[in-house]
């Protein structure tokens, strides 16, 4: 086969993505299972995206991001969102220094590489907005000074799906800012057995060694952007997104009363970007439809609004996406 450009690109991507396997091996020393979550964290890291994580407590969410931060020698901070949290508690504030007779900046926990915003829906809207603005702008203004946030910068926000009382659910426009919404489930029996054994053994979980530098992550980011995406794949992505907006045009008339609003252009952008990152993780220099389908649920599930009719019939975004994927022709 002769495909000089792609072959070279493929080779380059193969080399650039070499750290992925090492990273997986390293994190596996600490985290049992949750491969899907780790992959999605890497996708977020490689595409400058942020991740909204939904899962029950105790599923190693904190451990996963903490481990990843250690593996790439990055700074990690965790913010527990509570109803009395203030924006200044996240971004920082000006503190008066009586000795120097001046105000000094005290940076908030957002000044880290990896942020775990735990139970983001427990804080009021103004706090959520402060975080989401920082996520979007990648900079924070304290007083009159604007401080850029350090790269790589990844926010992993969690939502507890069961205790909804006294929470402030994120508005649709805000959830759209998250690149992926990842749902994590319980580990398998074997994984659970391994978790129990590891926790009961004398040795605690293995300490993670830094195996990659931050600058390598930044380099990998540029490699991800170079991954080749054919126009047929682009068309496939557009078709998937448009099928959620105009289902009848794709022979999905039955979905029309179930969808309140379809996926936004951010969905198309992020689906394309995430598919490239997925190809990168597979150590491939080009995107195939498989990559799009693998990442589609995580990109789309928080971007489709359901009608009351759908909710009454217990139809979820997952069902809508499945139906769309099973109807739109693969190139």
């Amino acid at each position, binding site marked *: 086969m002769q495909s000089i450009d792609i072959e070279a690109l493929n080779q380059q991507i193969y080399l650039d993505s070499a750290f992925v396997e090492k990273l997986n091996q390293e994190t596996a020393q600490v985290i049992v299972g949750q491969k899907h979550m780790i992959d999605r964290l890497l996708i977020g890291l490689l595409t400058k995206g942020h991740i909204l994580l939904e899962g029950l407590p105790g599923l190693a969410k904190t451990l996963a991001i903490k481990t990843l931060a250690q593996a790439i020698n990055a700074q990690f901070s965790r913010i527990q969102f509570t109803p009395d949290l203030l924006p200044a508690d996240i971004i920082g504030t000006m503190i008066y220094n009586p000795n120097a007779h001046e105000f000094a900046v005290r940076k908030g926990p957002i000044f880290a590489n990896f942020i775990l915003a735990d139970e983001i829906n427990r804080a009021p809207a103004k706090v959520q907005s402060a975080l989401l603005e920082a996520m979007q702008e990648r900079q924070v203004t304290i007083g009159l000074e604007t401080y850029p946030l350090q790269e790589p910068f990844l926010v992993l926000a969690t939502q507890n799906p069961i205790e909804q009382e006294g929470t402030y659910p994120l508005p649709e426009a805000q959830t759209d800012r998250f690149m992926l919404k990842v749902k994590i489930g319980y580990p398998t029996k074997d994984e659970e057995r391994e978790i129990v054994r590891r926790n009961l053994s004398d040795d605690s979980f293995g300490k993670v060694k830094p195996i990659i530098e931050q600058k390598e992550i930044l380099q990998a980011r540029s490699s991800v952007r170079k991954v*080749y995406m054919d126009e047929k794949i682009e068309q496939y992505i557009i078709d998937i997104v448009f099928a959620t907006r105009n289902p009848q045009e794709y022979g999905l008339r039955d979905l029309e009363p179930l969808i309140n609003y379809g996926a936004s252009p951010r969905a198309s952008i992020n689906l394309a970007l995430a598919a490239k990152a997925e190809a990168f993780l597979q150590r491939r220099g080009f995107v195939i*439809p498989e990559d799009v389908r693998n990442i589609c649920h995580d990109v789309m599930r928080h971007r489709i609004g359901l009608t009351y009719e759908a909710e009454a019939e217990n139809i979820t975004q997952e069902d809508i996406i499945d139906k769309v994927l099973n109807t739109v022709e*693969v190139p």
Partner: protein
Amino acid sequence: MRRFLFHILLTLMLLLTGISGPVASHAQVGARATIDSTEMLVGGKRTVRLRVDFAPGVLILEPGIIAIDTSGTLELLRTSAWDTTRVSDKAITLEKDLLLTAWDSGYYAISPIMVPYEIQGRTDTIYTNAIPLRVNMVPQDSTVLMPLKPIIEEPIRMEDFIPYLLGLFATLAILTALWWLWRRKNRPVAVVKAPPVVIPPHTLALKKFEPLKQAQLWQKGQFKEFHTQLTYILREYLESRYGILALESTSSEIATQLKSLVPEDLLQETTRLLNTSDMVKFAKATPPVEVHEQLLEQAKKFIHSTASAEATQTIQ
């Protein structure tokens, strides 16, 4: 004035009664009429009691009543039978009630009633006294305007609806007849459709490969287009042949679905075909010229091998 005349008439009658009374009693038969009231309203009723006293041996006959008054205004409604109210050795008393009414106001005199009787084979008569009677109109107060009486509702009867029901049935019958006539006129002409020709999936796929080969797309350098069409025909065939969502599945998903449907060697060849085509379609790969024809032949081979039993006969 009328009241004055009535009193004079009443006095005269009482005098006459006083004269004739002794005559009757002298004849051993006495008759007397009394009334419960000498006044009544128009349409009211009054009872005149006729009493005859007589000695044993006298036979009282039915009184001959032609008219109860001279003007004929009073109406005799009912007459009771003789009722013996007193019997002794010397005298017997019979009584009879006459029920009267009047429909016009005025002063009337109930005429003396003739009572015939027989005594010792001889027939004689005796008359009762006359009785004045005043018939009054219903008192009206003309100074007050009385409210109108409510309309008396007639009871609803089934018969009242019969004309409407008949009209309704007639309308429905006319409409039904019109609809029937219209339908009869516009009845579509039955067109016998020929049964759709069912082309077996393998025939269709093999048929589609010919123009693809003749188009010589790879010779023209249109590799991507060639492989897109090649895999499309193959996936279309898989969808029709096995009922799997091949057009909506990726190459690896198709391979997974075919695992239980085709032999292992055929599966591997087909997977290779799909993967090579993916490389051409999505990674700008340009395989050697002979590979395109090989893949086309491989696709044909797959279809020949997987066509159903009856379809195989058709191919041969």
